[in-house]
Each structure stands twice: as structure tokens, then as C-alpha cells.
């Protein structure tokens, strides 16, 4: 009986953890979307007011962000610095691809970020501003959708995790 009780407790804990993890992915998604937006605002300032070279600007921006998004800006900057003959699009796309596993973003949000890379660094300041502002605008609408998804699904995932664990435990006992 004691073994059954210990087993049931482990099952409940495990499913609860799965539920909480699934729920926190919604929170991470919102945080990442916000981090990308603030990163892009900072990039806009670097380009507009200082005309900082892109590799340096991306590196500076990465120091201002604390979530997983930091790695995207940092890797893109490294790609530009270390690889010869690489364009900004290639550097940005490769950074997004390599950091993809760490991010909780949906495919359409990644698509917005990939299309941002297409114009990155290859036009005058007003072109860069338009590209950044358009991307921020798109990310903002994704953010409001992500916030409502978080509200709806976060609690649901957590509760489901606990309930599923209890249900399985009852079955075992």
C-alpha cells in the first residue's frame, strides 16, 4: 500500500510539473514577444541616432535583454563578425534557427522575425525604421493574442496536470 501511495504521489507530481511547464510556455511566449519588441526599439535608436554598425548594434541590444531572446541578437552579431561574406539576412536567419529550440514562439511569429531579417541593414535609415516599426506592430498584435491565450490556457494546463495526475493515481490504487 505504501508503495502504491508513493507511486501515486510521484505520478501526481510528474503530471503537475508537465501541466505547469505547458502553462509557463504561454508566459514565456508573451515575455519573448515583449523582449523582441524592446530589442527592436533599442535597435531602432542605435540605427537612427548613432548609425552604429549592425554587428555592434545587435551586440549592444543583446546586453539590454535578459530572456532567451538575448541569444538571438547575440548570435546574429557573432555571425556577422566571424563569418566572411555573410549578409544580414543570413546572419539573422541562422541566429533564429539556432536559437529556435530555446524559444516558445509560434511559427507565424518566427515568420514575422524572419521577414524582418530580409530588410535588415540593406537600406537607408528611413527604410530601417519602417522595417523595425512594421515588425514591432506585427509582434504587438501577436502579443495581444498571446496574452489572451495565456489567460485562457495557463490555468487550464496547470489544472489539467494536477487533475490528470489524481485521475491516474486513483486508477493505480
Amino acid at each position, binding site marked *: 500500500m505504501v508503495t502504491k501511495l508513493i507511486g501515486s504521489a510521484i505520478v501526481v507530481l510528474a503530471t503537475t510539473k508537465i501541466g505547469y511547464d505547458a502553462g509557463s510556455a504561454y508566459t514565456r511566449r508573451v515575455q519573448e514577444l515583449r523582449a523582441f519588441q524592446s530589442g527592436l526599439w533599442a535597435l531602432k535608436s542605435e540605427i537612427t541616432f548613432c548609425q552604429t554598425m549592425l*554587428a555592434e*548594434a545587435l551586440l549592444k541590444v543583446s546586453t539590454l535583454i535578459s530572456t532567451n531572446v538575448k541569444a538571438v541578437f547575440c548570435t546574429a552579431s557573432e555571425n556577422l563578425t566571424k563569418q566572411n561574406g555573410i*549578409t544580414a539576412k543570413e546572419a539573422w536567419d541562422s541566429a533564429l534557427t539556432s536559437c529556435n529550440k530555446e524559444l516558445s514562439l509560434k511559427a507565424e511569429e518566427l515568420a514575422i522575425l524572419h521577414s524582418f531579417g530580409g530588410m535588415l541593414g540593406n*537600406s537607408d535609415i528611413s527604410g530601417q525604421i519602417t522595417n523595425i516599426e512594421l515588425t514591432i506592430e506585427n509582434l504587438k498584435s501577436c502579443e495581444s493574442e498571446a496574452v489572451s491565450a495565456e489567460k485562457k490556457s495557463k490555468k487550464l494546463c496547470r489544472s489539467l496536470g494536477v487533475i490528470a495526475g489524481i485521475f491516474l493515481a486513483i486508477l493505480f490504487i
Partner: protein
Amino acid sequence: MTTKRQILENLPLEISKILENILESTFEKMQEIRLRMGRQLMLCVDGDIKTLPHIVTREEIEKCLQIISGCSVYAFLEEIKNGFITINGGHRIGICGRAVVQNGVVTNIKSISGINIRIAHQIKGCANKIMPYILDKGIGNTLIISPPQCGKTTIIRDVARQLGERFKVSVIDERGEICAMSAGEPQYDIGEMTDVIDLCPKSIGIELMLRSMSPEVIITDEIADCDISSLKRALSCGVKIIATAHGDNIENTLKRLKTEDLINEFSSVILLSNRKGAGTIEEVKHYGYKTNRQRNCSVSNY
């Protein structure tokens, strides 16, 4: 870093792979690499034009512009407006395409159709035949005139090196070609006493150097008529001027530059060509206190 590396790392991979097999020594003799959209890749080596069996594409031209600008085209708009960007090593990348003109002023160049990579070299001693004209009775104000590709910049770099060993020299390097400064350090030997202000318009640079560095000689490249008043100001301060200008005829160039009231200040005006190799001295005229000794010189080259 070698010239070859400096150039290859600024080219798209497709083109740098093709040029990778070219010997280092050939790069040392190479003057230009030309990328023209839809046409063959072209090299100018030691005065000879060589075409390579590779058709340059629009993507390659666009990629090349991105790479040479460090993927930061927005930071090079001023340079693009002027039609060139200078890269690490002092190599000048010329750009042509469709000019965007607003109120009679070029504000951008779009649809880039051609890129010309002009490779800079340092040839120590290439100014040896010119130095006697510059150093005749102390330093004389000297104007070196030649069409493009005749070695003006290479010669003036060597003049800076030689004068910089003995005098306080200030170089106004508007295009960053003469000294190829990188993080405050010249990429070429320009002499122990040579100070440089780079990527600065000549008229501003001359004023700045006069105020801050107390030069004995000011060296600058490719002067135009808009720079003449700054040159006058420097001359009135007792500073000597060594400058270059585009042209293939001394009189016409002096007229174009509107140097009538300045010409007597120049002790030598030297015309170069590439008839017997870059830097061939075609003609030397002496003005000012040497007017009565005006003479033409025999042809020689470095």
C-alpha cells in the same frame, strides 16, 4: 592581413571562391576587380584587362554592397551618395547605378549595377623621382595631376612617408585611401611624424589640422575647386601643400580648379600618366619664384 584576404572577405562567397585560386603575388599587382551586372567578372592586373568565365548576378552585386558596408548600408549613405566606400586597407569600392536626385543633389544611388574594387598598394620609393621637385630649396608647394589609374594616391602615400620622416606632416585623407586608418592606426607606413585626419571633408580637415597639429606640410588627395579657399588659408599660414588632382593637362586642370591667384604659390606642378607604367612623369612646370626656370622634363617612371 594580406591584400588578398582584405579583398576576398569583402566579396560574396560565390566570387571569393573564384578568386581564391589567384596567387598572392598577382593580387599585389592587381589594380581593379570589376563586377558589372549580367556581364563577366573582370580583373585589371598590371594594366592588362582579364575576364573570368563568371557572369555577375544582381544578387551578387547586392550582397557585395551589403558586405562592404558591414551589413549597415544606412551608415554609409554619405559615401554611397559620393559613389564609393573605402574598406579596411584603403581599398576604394566604387559604386554605380541609378542616381536619386532631389533639388539637383544626389541623395542616393539605387539599383546598383556595377562595383569597382580599386586595390590600394604601398610601393615604397615610388615617389623618389618626384621628391627632388618637392624638396628643391626646402619644401615647395606641389600639385600632382594625372588621369585616374596613374598612381597619384600611391605616390602621395610615399611622399607622406618620406616627408613624414623629417617634417611635421598632416594628411587630410578624405576618402581614407592614403593612410587606410583602422582604429586610429595607419595600415601603411606613412612616416614617424605624420598625423592623419580621415573621412573628413578637405576644407574642414585643413582648418582642423592647422589649429590642432601645427603642421609644416599638409598633404591631401584629389582636390577640387571647392577646396581652393582652404588651400589658400593654409598657404597664408605658411604651411606647405602637397596635393593631387584629376586631369590630363596642366593648364586645363589649373583653369578648372580656378587656381589663377594661387598658382604662383606652387613651385611645381607635375603631370603623370601611365604611358610607361603607373607614375610616368610626363611634364613638370614650375610656377611662382621659378617661373623663369619653367621647363619640361624627360619621361621617366617608377
